[in-house]
């Protein structure tokens, strides 16, 4: 069976879904179910102490059934990212985490110096670190050498919906690494997800494109099938591109 393997864990779905930006927790939970995702990213934030009745994400998405991937969204330096993931581990023993250290508030591009430093520290502390990064093959190599368990380059800025902007770099990263390569951020529509998988990536992480679609459930389903279709297309060994036509029907017996 064609499974996604990350840090010795195996998953049937190659689609990872973010849980932010949904209009409600129940909408989020339903979209995840439809998407077939087995891994979801979650953020670490303060408990609302003035309202103890506020529902918790864990009441809607069971961490025993769906793998929670705690992230460091909103962290702009290594210190904050490390603090956040140590807290995440304390909540329930999570070792598989998504590191994301941002460097610029407008583009939301990652600060790769801080990201690399954090990857080294977290790996030494026993975390399995999936790393959000820019699409720079050299940096991706450094992250791999620092012990990352998955490389997660952006397709385009977070939430931009622009699709893959730098196909060549993604192909080079694919060529150089045997680690799981998961495109994280910038997907806008199902064809972007399929394209990602056709490039040979191992998975794709999508949040905004599903959560902010006019009809999130339909987009969740579209992404599910796009990832499956793209993966199968990649595995099938596509035909060569030709400049001229090549008839599909035999000439023999033409009337």
């Amino acid at each position, binding site marked *: 069976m064609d499974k996604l393997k990350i840090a010795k864990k195996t998953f049937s779905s190659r689609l990872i879904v*973010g*849980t*932010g*930006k*949904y209009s409600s*927790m129940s909408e*989020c939970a339903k979209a995840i179910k439809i998407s077939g995702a087995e891994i979801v*990213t*979650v*953020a*670490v*934030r*303060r*408990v609302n*102490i*003035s309202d*103890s009745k506020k529902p*918790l*994400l*864990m009441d809607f998405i069971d961490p025993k059934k769906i793998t*929670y991937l*705690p*992230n460091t*969204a909103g962290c702009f330096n290594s210190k904050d990212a490390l*603090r956040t993931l*140590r*807290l*995440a581990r*304390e*909540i*329930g023993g999570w070792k598989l985490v998504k590191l994301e250290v941002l460097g610029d508030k407008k583009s939301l591009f990652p600060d790769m110096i801080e990201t690399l430093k954090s990857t080294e520290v977290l790996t030494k502390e026993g975390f399995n670190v999936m790393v959000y990064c820019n699409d720079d093959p050299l940096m991706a190599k450094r992250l791999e050498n620092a012990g990352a368990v998955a490389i997660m380059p952006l397709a385009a800025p*977070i*939430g931009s919906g622009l699709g893959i902007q730098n196909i060549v770099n993604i192909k080079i990263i694919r060529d150089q690494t045997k680690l799981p390569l998961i495109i994280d*951020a910038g997907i806008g529509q199902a064809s972007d997800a399929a394209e990602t998988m056709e490039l040979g990536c191992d998975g794709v*992480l999508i*949040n*905004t494109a599903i959560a902010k679609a006019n009809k999130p459930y339909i987009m969740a389903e579209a992404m599910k099938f796009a990832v499956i279709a793209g993966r199968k297309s990649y595995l099938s060994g596509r035909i060569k591109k030709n400049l001229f036509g090549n008839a599909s029907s035999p000439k023999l017996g033409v009337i």
Partner: protein
Amino acid sequence: MNKKNKIKIKLNGKIVFIPKNTSLKNLANKFKIPLNKVAIEVNMEIIDKKKLNKTIIKSADKIEIVQFIGGG
């Protein structure tokens, strides 16, 4: 309760007055915090959940209680 028996702390960024000799466990109970779904930090140091009963809150402590929420 007399105010002199109370201490001032910062809980999740808000100033809160609590009785002296309150443990972290008492505090969590007071705010109905589901302990299996949170992590607790006192003055930037994570407190092992097994030690919440023994950890007595001191004046001016900065306590953070965090959970998972939706995020990408």
